[in-house]
């Protein structure tokens, strides 16, 4: 059963990418709906299977690592697969209403969308360092294509900038992979970890790890390498922005996190961990501050991503040289942060798109009166904002809580300031938007009212993000599931 599910999972996005490439926008839309249905069902099935039976390794082509490529299907991976399915489904559904079928280039949205999805699944499940590289490239190029889709100069500039950063990042990562392979002779992450753990290779080199982390951090837009992100995420179509912010940056972070958790203990060091943590902290502060200063709505949201990504990098200091319990707490916190940010940020971008569509301008101060005439769209935006602020009972809060606990328990109290100040700063930019929308300077409803389906989607995502905090315990328990015995 799980084998079938796996095949479905790997096959569907790629197949639908091809299918939608061959048809026009409207047809592609219909096809996509079907594909989304299939993919969501498959993801759910896989998640349920892993939740009940535990994780396993999936051998592609029937070849074991290190010769072949193994997929690592554990609780965390399937959780992210499911998350991807949900968010991508929402974005795809939104795009199918949001995008104008009359523009010929919009038909290419669907194949790129599906390739992106496929790439994400590759990354979540990947256990092979080079395979991850290919997955990353798949994601990057699809994402760049989506950003540039039919765009004008500004969009192209953003896309090129994005592409350049992504390429440099990939290359740094690949160089690291090359060195790792040179040293260990294998590309399987599990093998490398095993070799390090059982002392076969006593003195691992730190530099490859640093290279890979650098590349991945660049792709994740860690401060101060975040410059490419806001233009790209800000200028893309809202469903695209949502995908990029919610999922794409998480992919590179996910790899970095897995590398760190597997290799960091042997190849990393306290200074490296702290340095990354400090950069993350600065990202939180600086990103929030810049978000607060933006005049365009989507730029606010985009800079907010920079800040929220900063939290993720607290994983590094909080898992280095601490007890397993604290490390687990930090991992759980970061996982929740990834999920809740994905849901919330997708909701926020989609809601922002709706708002922009309604008011006919992308400026924050054009939102006056929205609260009165378009409360529904604003509500989703607001709910998502609550999660970003880390206020209870959202997933963002649950994440923050766990990180606070981990910081306190590990004695690294300096992260407390980041966590708390970050929450307040994000409140600052979120409330700036609210505030603008609460200005009551018009008595006439001159706004365009988007279709209900557009408005419902971000609301659902926002509610999921909100509810995540309440059901954090069961979700986390699936993530922490061990592999079923030693299946390999």
């Amino acid at each position, binding site marked *: 059963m799980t084998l079938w599910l796996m095949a479905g999972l790997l096959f569907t996005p790629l197949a639908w990418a091809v299918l939608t490439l061959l048809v026009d926008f409207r047809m592609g839309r219909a096809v996509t709906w079907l594909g989304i249905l299939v993919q969501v069902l498959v993801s759910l099935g896989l998640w349920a299977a892993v939740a009940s039976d535990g994780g396993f390794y999936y051998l592609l082509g029937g070849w074991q690592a290190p010769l072949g490529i193994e997929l690592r299907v554990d609780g965390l991976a399937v959780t992210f697969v499911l998350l991807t399915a949900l968010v991508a489904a929402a974005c795809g559904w939104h795009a199918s209403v949001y995008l104008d079928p009359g523009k010929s280039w919009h038909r290419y949205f669907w194949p790129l969308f599906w390739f992106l999805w496929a790439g994400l699944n590759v990354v979540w499940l990947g256990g092979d360092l080079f395979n991850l590289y290919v997955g990353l490239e798949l994601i990057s190029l699809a994402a760049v294509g989506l950003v540039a889709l039919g765009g004008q*100069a500004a969009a192209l500039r953003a896309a090129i900038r994005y592409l350049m950063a992504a390429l440099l990042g990939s290359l740094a990562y690949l160089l690291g992979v090359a060195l790792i392979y040179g040293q260990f002779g294998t590309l399987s992450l599990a093998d490398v970890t095993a070799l390090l753990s059982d002392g076969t290779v006593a003195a691992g080199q730190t530099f490859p790890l640093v290279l890979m982390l650098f590349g991945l951090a660049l792709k994740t837009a860690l401060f101060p390498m975040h410059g490419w992100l806001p233009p790209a995420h800000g200028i893309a179509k809202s469903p695209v922005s949502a995908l990029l912010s919610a999922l794409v940056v998480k992919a590179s972070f996910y790899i970095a996190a897995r590398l760190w958790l597997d290799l960091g203990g042997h190849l990393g060091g306290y200074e490296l961990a702290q340095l990354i943590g400090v950069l993350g902290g600065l990202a939180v502060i600086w990103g929030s501050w810049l978000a607060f200063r933006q005049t365009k709505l989507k730029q606010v949201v985009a800079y907010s991503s920079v800040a929220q990504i900063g939290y993720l990098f607290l994983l590094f200091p909080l898992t280095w040289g601490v007890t397993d319990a604290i490390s687990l707490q930090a991992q759980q916190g970061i996982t929740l942060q990834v999920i809740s940010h994905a849901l919330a940020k997708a909701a926020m971008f989609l809601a922002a798109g709706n708002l922009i569509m309604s008011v006919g301008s992308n400026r924050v101060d054009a939102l006056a009166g929205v609260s009165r005439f378009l409360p529904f769209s604003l509500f989703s935006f607001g709910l998502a904002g609550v999660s970003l602020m880390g206020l209870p009972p959202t997933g963002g809060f649950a994440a923050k809580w766990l990180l606070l606990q981990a910081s306190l328990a590990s004695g690294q109290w300096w992260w407390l300031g980041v966590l708390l100040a970050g929450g307040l700063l994000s409140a600052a930019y979120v409330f700036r938007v609210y505030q603008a929308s609460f200005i009551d300077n018009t008595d006439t409803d001159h706004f365009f009212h988007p279709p209900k389906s557009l408005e419902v989607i971000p609301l659902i995502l926002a509610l999921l993000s909100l509810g995540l905090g309440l059901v954090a315990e069961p979700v986390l328990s699936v993530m922490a599931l061990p592999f079923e015995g030693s299946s390999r």
Partner: protein
Amino acid sequence: MTIHLLYAFAGVALCGIGLFGFIRLDHLLRKLMAFNLMGSGVFLVMVGLAQRGGQPDPVPQALVLTGIVVAVAATALAVVLIRRYYHLSGQITLAEPGREPVKKPAADAHREGPTE
């Protein structure tokens, strides 16, 4: 120290040069070239390092082949983007447009490639 390691070190040098070019150059095509240079360096390191034992290792070679295709795809995409960007804005760097964006007449832009 085998001859293959020399390739690896050549790769190292290429990486360094490529990196310098990548961060130093503003012209997008040149930047792209620097990227390709760096890519070559990486491939050299990969293959050279793996072959230090003497016998050739087909795995990194296959990887490099895949890497090359990916790099080609990326480069091609970048070139397409850069060309279109040039046509639309008349710019060949990523600098934010000044007060008066240099906008060539569309017909000209259509004709001439981004050849500076």
